[in-house]
């Protein structure tokens, strides 16, 4: 391993290698358009606008001589990134999609107030956009986001896998659901249920089925601790009996879709609007067999209270440090039009416009529209926004995972949630 005498490669040889490499790389595709609008979003926002021949924005792009480039990330990293981008001196992202439980008095200042744009160059039939959603994006009197997507969570099931395990109807109570998932796992062909472990949505649904909650609209933490404890006990039991996959703790939101499409799981909790993708013959092995109902409530509460499903809303924002805010508004205005709201809904986007649910074209294609609007009537967010919401969600998820994996008793997990999250809540 002596140094000097082993170096036989000359400098010219080395430089030649590098130059060849560059030539090879430079052959990549070029990106030459006259204008580009950078959008930061979740993949689902991009796909609902359609791609290729089905691009809903094709005409708009031509008219404005603009190409729209999406950068897509999964929910949590997306929010980290959006706030980081908005805190810069300048960002390339002119439009950022924001989920409704993240804006706070502090970080809302980083985004453009959209009322002025609306006054100057209004969105078509703005009143049609659900008032509650608009309120959720109005922070300290400033409208910072235009609602574009609602994701109302429903219970999806694979009819064929249910039938094979001897069930001819979906569950009507939570207890039946649990029994079916366990039986299907025991049957051996598929896992009973697939849930993501990185979002609060799923344990919150279980807790609400027992009349509990995580943090309610009045910022009350665990309003019914016993219900949360029962929910965690049920989930831990499902995990232990194999009704949730062993990979539960690393399953991310985006995987649920593939698990269902491939028939690896019989049940999942997903936004109703995903029905189209789940039943698309091009990507799904069970096209036409994946149905949805409202998430069932516990038998003890059935008929007494209505199940309150989780609804998540997304809005389009313009970072105050964006370069081309007017173009961004043009994009937002176009995406929010009645025509495109319907187009996106047909592509599997939960509409933010009330009237879209009633469009015959949608109800004809999507048999779930009616169920969805019923569930939506009682639905509310997984938790309200506040300054430490990200940290609170993280702690909640951590404790839920510990309880579900059986590393902590549900009782201890609930006690620890209370002790760790309470100090984070707004006074």
């Amino acid at each position, binding site marked *: 391993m002596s140094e000097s005498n082993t170096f036989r490669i000359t400098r010219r040889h080395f430089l030649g290698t590098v130059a060849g490499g560059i030539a090879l790389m430079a052959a990549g595709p070029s990106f030459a358009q006259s204008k580009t609008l950078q959008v930061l979003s979740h993949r689902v926002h991009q796909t609902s606008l359609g791609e290729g021949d089905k691009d809903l924005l094709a005409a708009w792009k031509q008219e404005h001589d603009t190409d729209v480039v999406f950068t897509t990330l999964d929910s949590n990293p997306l929010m980290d990134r959006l706030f980081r981008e908005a805190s810069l001196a300048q960002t*390339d992202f002119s439009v950022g999609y924001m989920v409704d439980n993240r804006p706070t008095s502090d970080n809302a200042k980083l985004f453009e107030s959209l009322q002025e744009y609306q006054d100057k160059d209004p969105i078509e039939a703005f009143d049609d956009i659900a008032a509650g959603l608009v309120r959720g994006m109005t922070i300290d009197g400033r409208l910072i986001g235009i609602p574009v997507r609602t994701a109302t969570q429903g219970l999806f099931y694979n009819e064929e896998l249910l039938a094979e395990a001897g069930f001819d109807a979906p569950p009507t109570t939570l207890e039946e659901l649990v029994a079916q998932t366990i039986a299907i796992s025991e049957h051996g062909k598929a896992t009973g249920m697939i849930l993501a472990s990185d979002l609060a949505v799923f344990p919150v649904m279980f807790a609400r089925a027992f009349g509990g909650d995580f943090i309610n609209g009045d910022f009350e933490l665990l309003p019914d601790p016993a219900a949360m404890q029962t929910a965690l006990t049920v989930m831990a039991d499902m995990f232990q009996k194999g009704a949730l996959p062993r990979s539960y703790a690393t399953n991310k939101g985006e995987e649920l879709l593939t698990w269902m499409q491939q028939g690896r799981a019989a049940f999942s909790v997903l936004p109703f609007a995903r029905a189209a993708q789940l039943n698309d013959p091009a990507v799904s092995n069970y096209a036409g067999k994946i149905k949805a109902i409202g998430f069932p409530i516990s038998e003890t509460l059935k008929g007494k209270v209505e199940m309150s499903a989780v609804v998540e809303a997304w809005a389009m924002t313009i970072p105050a440090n964006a370069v081309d805010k007017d173009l961004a508004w043009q994009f937002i205005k176009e995406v929010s039009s009645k025509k495109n709201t319907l187009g996106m809904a047909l592509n599997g986007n939960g509409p933010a416009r009330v009237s879209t649910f009633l469009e015959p074209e949608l109800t004809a294609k999507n048999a779930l529209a009616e169920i969805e609007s019923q569930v939506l009537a009682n639905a509310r967010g997984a938790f309200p926004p506040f300054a430490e919401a990200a940290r609170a969600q993280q702690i909640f998820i951590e404790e839920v995972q510990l309880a579900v994996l059986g590393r902590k008793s549900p009782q201890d997990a609930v006690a620890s949630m209370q002790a760790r999250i309470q100090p984070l809540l707004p006074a």
Partner: protein
Amino acid sequence: MRVERILVNAGKTLAVLLLLVWSLFPIVFIITSSFKPGREIFAVPPQWFFAPTFDHYITLWQRWAVFFHGLLNSTIVTIGAAALAVMASTCAGYVYSRYSSRWLGASLLSLIAIRLIPPIVVTLPLFPIVNNLGLADTHFILSVLYATFFVSLGTVLMRTFIDQIPRELDEAASMDGATLPVVLWRIIMPLAAPGIIAVAVFVVVFAWNEFLFAFIFTSTKAKTAPLVISEMIGSIEGVDWGVLFAASTIQLLPVLIFVMLMNRYLVAGLTAGATKG
């Protein structure tokens, strides 16, 4: 005695085989898998003979154009970082080689100490600074960051290599009236070429593969290939392994071949860098 020898040889062969499987199997596996048609990737047991297809590469080209943009960015950043690190290290290495004083000795040690600060520590304060200077998401900032974390090693390496060049050569040149830059360019750099290559190899491998800085300091314009691959792992609907393997193969192969060709320089650099102050 003969039996013992056979046993020893068998043991050694087994150890070598294990070592080869350990080092190469994962790499060979993803390269071959990237050419397998859809479902054969998941075949049990893995198929070693199959009709190769470029399907995944075509999908990659169609759906992930941003990956190829990332490769271009990686190339620019890597070349920038290597050039900067080589220039800075050669200049400083020359000084440390040709002169010695207490002050210089102490500053060399401080170079080494500073290099040992974890990179993630500086991301936090650099983030707002870089943004206020308007350098976020530029090739320039990534090149500077990558070069900086290698100039200490580079300086130490260049000093070792320049030490082997007889002083008489540069002294004779300056007698003939050559200025310091000329001495460096005409005498030191050509003779220390092996050292320069060794420094470049390190910086190239590091800059081509780096994740953390690229993750924090780029958004769209300067996004590098590893970052695009990480987005492929994390954000598409389920992991499309075939496309991911195609992208990984493209990202991996150039630097793998480079390392294999340059392994002597790498070894010389590693030993000199880690064991010589």
